[in-house]
């Protein structure tokens, strides 16, 4: 019983992280639609464009998943 607890738990937590990150990004995209996040013209594109925010979101997701997997693998 205890042998399958760790993988199940890690899968559950990773699944929750993935679901949360995707939901957060989708909610953000929905809310940001119609705001001038990318600038009205090319000369005023701000540092944080939608594309860069998407990359930040992906990097954050991957980092969290890696931390969870590392903790379950090394410290459990």
């Amino acid at each position, binding site marked *: 019983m205890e042998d399958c607890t760790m993988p199940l738990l890690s899968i559950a937590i990773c699944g929750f*992280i993935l679901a949360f990150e995707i939901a957060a990004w989708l909610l*953000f995209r929905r*809310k940001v639609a119609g705001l*001038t996040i990318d600038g009205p013209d090319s000369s005023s594109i701000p540092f944080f464009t939608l594309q860069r925010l998407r990359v930040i979101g992906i990097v954050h997701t991957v980092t969290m998943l890696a931390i969870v997997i590392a903790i379950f693998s090394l*410290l*459990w």
Partner: protein
Amino acid sequence: MVVDTRRSGPTAFQGMSRAEHIEFYFRQHWIRLLWPFSRLCLACTVIAGGAWFVTAGIPDASMRRLGILALLLIFLALQASFLVRFYRHFLYVIIVTDRKIHRIKKTFLAIDDHQSIDLWSLQDINKSQRGIIQNLFGFGTLTLEAQESILKIHFVPKITKHYESILRLQGRGQRPIPQQAPA
């Protein structure tokens, strides 16, 4: 008439009228995120210390696992909270057109505010920077007073530049947007 942003190009935003032209826009100063980020780093440091204590100090394997799991869940909750706070930073926008100043403030679920004030109806435009930090980093509060309303915008970045730009726009003496006659 409000422009439907789904059919408009990238220069339109929600609540924009056809006769308006975007002059500039800005979000709150990045320093607004500094405290939440510092709090996250501090909490992560404490959690890391707790994890070290749990792994080294607790001999019982099941208690150790419980401790690690609890710390992991707290860490993930803190990360999620900061991520939401980070995204929310980009949902607070001040858009200045040649006719109006729009303050759009949204959260993921609970808040969707849009306040706008006509440039021509402004009676007072005040800029205030209090303290060393605000003067050092160039941000402050803009207070826009019209006849029956006051709009305060906090953490305005490059406040002197934006203040002067708004004064210049107001000085142009834009006329109010003409209302369409009913059919």
